[in-house]
């Protein structure tokens, strides 16, 4: 296969070809020029920033016979031999596959032998974060005082995984992300070199998506070349390769969410889906765009935006300052769903459901009012099943709370607005906080303007407290709901007894319940 991927073909061979790491390169070069080479280096930084390349160049430069200004000449015997891997003086170890203590022991045994032709024997240990703890410790002594001809270069993306004892023995160089401008410059250079034209917008898009990694940028470029039939790489082509939804769709969906327009949101989702959009990516973009809105509204600084690039965008105008809380709520929902979509077998359906949830999120109160109305007519049907449920619970001997809760709901609905138990609890808590606390564990039931409060055996303490203050509470209740309101408190003797006898009677009335032996 004569074709070599771009990032391999354009791997820097000299320090001056390294991009975006000027200060590190200067230090390394100076060390070579002044012959002050340390015995252990640690190169860390994100992917595609040039750690392995720098290590390889450095290894050649220290051995080069006629190096000039710290650069390897790449023409002398030593450089050529090292480049073609025919000499054993540069030993590149893949620490991720050879991560055990045995491999390190082997290395330690061999370190003492002199280099075969150059001055130094260079060990490049790549992906060093994957070594096991034992292996790291086996390396310590060698790393501290290696023979004078040995140099260790450790390279890793995750220096935080190395033990402190390793870190303190190395000169540490942190490779920073390559800036977008540098990436653009290099991409343009590569394109010129391989005779491909590329649109300005396309270069920018690649640079943005490379996320500071040169290798990513060149990989994307490689892929774009494989779909472009002519020799011109267009913005659209890059977009299809990256699978980026047209920002317009993301905007439209957000607009729809802000407008509570379910239909528009779903239509746009369909478009995105048909364009081959990954749902996880879409949800990411939505969250990012919302984050942008949030940040822009708070800071007014357009530079901090990631997803929305247009300061004049309609969405930004649409959002008021008092919507911000709502938007952070949206982001939270999206973040939560993102995790679940990843593992779901029906990502699109989950996405639809999520969008509808967002679109309807702000209207719960209105909707709730709707339920209440419908409930009234629905009750007749509903009571029977509730009865069956009570019987089922008897047989399964599994006490649980739901039945009473339902009862409270229904009764409050019947009694209308003024009779809200929660409101009463609030009032009481205001006057007597301790008493309010004791009211909490009780299960309330309202019937004919009389409030009945039930306590479990376990909450007997609270029951006693309430019992003592019963008069007081009755007064407050009367104040709130009128003079004919009543209050009583009861201790539930035994759960199963309660569910079998007391509760059904109280819910449905004595005339409707018949116990079958």
């Amino acid at each position, binding site marked *: *296969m004569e*074709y*070599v*991927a771009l990032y*391999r073909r354009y791997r820097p061979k000299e320090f001056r070809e390294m991009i975006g790491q000027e200060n590190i390169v200067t230090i390394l070069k100076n060390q070579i020029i002044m012959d002050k080479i340390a015995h252990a280096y640690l190169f860390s930084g994100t*992917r*595609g920033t040039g750690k392995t390349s720098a290590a390889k160049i450095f290894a050649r430069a220290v051995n080069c016979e006629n190096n000039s200004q710290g650069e390897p000449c790449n023409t002398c015997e030593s450089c050529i031999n090292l480049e073609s891997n025919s000499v054993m003086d540069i030993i590149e170890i*893949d620490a*991720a*596959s050879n*991560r055990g203590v045995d491999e390190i022991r082997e290395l330690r045994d061999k370190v003492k032998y002199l280099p075969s032709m150059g001055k130094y024997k260079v060990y490049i240990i*790549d*992906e060093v*974060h*994957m070594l096991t703890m034992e292996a790291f410790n086996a390396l310590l002594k060698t790393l501290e005082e290696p023979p004078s001809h040995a140099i260790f270069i450790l390279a890793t*993306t995750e220096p935080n995984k190395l033990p402190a004892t390793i870190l303190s023995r190395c000169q540490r160089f942190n490779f920073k992300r390559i800036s977008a401008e540098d990436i653009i410059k290099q991409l343009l250079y590569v394109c010129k070199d391989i005779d491909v034209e590329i649109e300005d917008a396309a270069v920018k898009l690649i640079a943005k998506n490379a996320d500071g*990694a040169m*290798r*990513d940028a060149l*990989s994307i470029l490689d*892929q774009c070349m*494989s*779909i472009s039939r002519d020799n011109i790489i267009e913005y659209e082509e890059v977009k*299809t390769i990256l*699978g980026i939804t047209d920002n317009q769709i993301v905007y439209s969906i957000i607009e729809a969410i802000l407008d509570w327009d*379910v239909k528009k949101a779903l239509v746009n989702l*369909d478009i995105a889906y*048909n364009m*081959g*959009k*990954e749902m*996880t990516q879409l949800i990411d973009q939505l969250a990012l765009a919302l984050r942008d809105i949030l940040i822009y509204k708070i800071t007014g600084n357009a530079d901090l935006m990631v997803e929305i690039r247009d300061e004049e965008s309609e969405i930004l105008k649409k959002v008021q300052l008092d919507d911000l809380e709502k938007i952070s709520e949206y982001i939270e929902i999206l973040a939560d769903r993102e995790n*679940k979509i*990843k*593992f*779901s*077998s*029906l*990502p*699109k*359906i*989950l996405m*639809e*459901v999520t969008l*509808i*949830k967002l*679109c309807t999120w702000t*209207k*719960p109160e209105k*909707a*709730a009012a*709707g*339920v209440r109305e*419908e409930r009234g007519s*629905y009750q007749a*049907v509903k009571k029977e*099943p509730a009865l069956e*449920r009570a019987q089922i619970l008897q047989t399964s001997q599994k006490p649980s709370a*739901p039945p009473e809760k*339902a009862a409270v709901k229904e009764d409050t609905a019947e009694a209308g607005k003024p009779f809200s138990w929660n409101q009463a609890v609030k009032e009481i808590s205001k006057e007597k906080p301790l008493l309010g606390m004791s009211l909490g564990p009780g299960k309330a039931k309202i019937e004919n303007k009389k409030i009945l409060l039930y306590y479990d055996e376990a909450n007997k303490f609270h029951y006693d407290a309430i019992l003592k203050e019963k008069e007081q509470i009755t007064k407050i209740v009367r104040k709130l709901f009128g003079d004919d309101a009543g209050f009583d408190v009861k201790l539930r003797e035994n759960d199963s007894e309660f569910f079998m006898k007391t509760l059904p009677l109280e819910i449905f009335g004595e005339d409707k319940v018949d116990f079958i032996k």
Partner: protein
Amino acid sequence: MFDNIHGNELNKEILKNMINERKYGHAYLFSGPKGTQKRKIAIEFIKGIFCLSEGERPCHVCSQCHKIESGNHPDFHEIRPEDENIKIQQIRDMQKSMMIKPYEGDKKVYLVNSCESMGVPAQNSLLKILEEPSGSTMVILVANSKKSILPTILSRCQILNFNPLAKASFVTIMTDEYGTDADEADLLFQLTQGRIDEAGKMIRYPEKKNEYRIIEEHLDLLRKGNVEKIFDITKMAKEKGIDDIKLTDYLLIYFRNILINKALKVENYDEDCLTIPEINDIIERIIDIQSNTKINVNMQLQVESLLLKIQEE
């Protein structure tokens, strides 16, 4: 070359171009949800690489094509998860075998399936061979999701994203090839999310498809207040061997349909007493249950309690 494979036109074209120009990269990642025929396309692509034919490749008749089809080409290696995961030892073995020169031609191809099942150590041990494989070796990774693959691997591969079929083309294929009517195709699309293979299977074995229909009926009754149906549903699921995830998927589809009809205010859809926030609640619960299956809770109980809750709403 990809005659029998529907969808993912862009990817097919990229691969075709590469085969025609014989310009291959050294590392690819095919990523996309289950059932998007990633492996099938990968095999076709590999055949195209090895094929001896002068005309269109793959020819499906030459010895190379046959060997790959039957899985005994000496220079084509396929790695599958052992037990559940791909182990680091498998990757090490793969590295070792990469050192050996190809037996027949001048290239070697490794196809690694289910990459999302690789642990972090295994993924890391792939890094160096992905970056600079020896000689003319190519590695094709196949994964269900990019999310669980290390960024350092992603940056070393050319990534092809695979998508399920869009609804329109799915329906056309269904009606053209299987002669299903529009309603049926719509249901199949929902159940399979555009995975045409699975849809084909469902048509051949209609029980699968009917499962949903039955559950739908039961749920309708349940919503009208028929509590016993709850236990019918779980019992039936057990008898028919519908697994738990599938069952919750059905529930999700069902409530999603209600939700959409409700939210879009479709006419003649007033029999319902559930409100949008309530449905949202239910769906939230279904999703929770789905993530709970990972920690081995008793699914039957979970589903039953969910249905009880739904009935109550």
